[in-house]
């Protein structure tokens, strides 16, 4: 009897490992920035380039930093979700316009609507590197102390908004 049970158990264990592996997304690289202060930057605003914005301005508030670009296809997918979130006034969304031309970025926001309190322009992608951006769109949840609490790689969807981002925001706002 043992002769059959042992190979069977080995098979089941292997099958479970392979099945779990099949469902993992290799694109979701865990960010080492979770729990660390959001990297500092001072960047010009998209709409008013003479004005700057820095994460330091947001001390005491929970906010979202959404990395986007007019050339980014998945950003179109998440755009309505961000628009809906912005209307609910739960948490301010700030945009980081990544490696984009300001003219095209402004045109895209005019056409599709602007969910951001403001966007800053990272034309050369240097701040993107500090934030470990490798696939736009990416969204960071940043707490009152300016610490990154969560990173959403890929588009914000109604699902991950409801299950991850909003509960996290509510918890951080209550603190």
């Amino acid at each position, binding site marked *: 009897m043992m002769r059959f049970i042992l190979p069977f158990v080995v098979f089941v264990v292997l099958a479970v490992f392979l099945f779990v592996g099949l469902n993992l997304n290799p*694109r979701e*690289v865990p*960010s*080492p*920035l979770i729990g660390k202060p959001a990297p500092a930057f001072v960047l010009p605003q998209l709409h008013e380039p003479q004005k700057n914005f820095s994460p330091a301005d947001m001390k005491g508030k929970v906010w979202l930093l959404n990395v986007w670009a007019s050339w980014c296809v998945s950003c179109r997918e998440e755009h309505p979700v961000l628009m809906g979130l912005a209307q609910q006034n739960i948490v301010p969304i700030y945009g980081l316009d990544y*490696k984009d031309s300001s003219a095209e970025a402004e045109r895209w926001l005019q056409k599709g609507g602007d969910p951001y309190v403001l966007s800053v322009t990272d034309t050369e*992608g*240097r701040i993107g590197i500090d934030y470990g*951006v*490798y696939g736009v769109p990416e969204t960071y949840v940043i707490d009152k102390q300016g610490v990154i609490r969560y990173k959403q790689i890929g588009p914000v969807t109604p699902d991950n908004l409801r299950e991850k981002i909003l509960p996290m925001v509510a918890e951080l706002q209550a603190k």
Partner: protein
Amino acid sequence: MKRLLILLFFLLPTFALAGEAQDMAADPVLEKRMVGLAEKLRCLVCQNESLASSHAELAEDLRREVRELMQKGMSDQEILDYLVSRYGDFVLYDPPMKKTTLVLWYGPFALLLLGAGVLFLQLRKRKSEIAEPQLTEEQSARAAVLLAERQDSQTQPKDTQA
């Protein structure tokens, strides 16, 4: 207006750096060192390519970053640490030894030892299973006859050969 001028003044060094970085690309020694280091790094966009061989825009930006960091006088190790602090261990093709990667490093050896152990136990079990069968007197008498016959037939051809 005054503020804008001040801002532009502070932005000047960034522009200067960008210009220099392009010049450095022409420096073959630094370029070779950069490519050598970039071969140890993974491009995060096209995950099975190294930073050196990838044509993704992010890879180009990261190569520029590495070049500039080298120009600033950072050692290779410092640059690796710089990138790991932003992108995690995943950027390294050679995963570092730490608690979470112990299985990765020692797992294959553990499996090998396990396999050797199972083999050893199986062989020992089999050895004990092939025990000398108990023969009745009649059977052993027959066996003796058969063995004697076989010995005869074996020795005969040997004699003829010799």
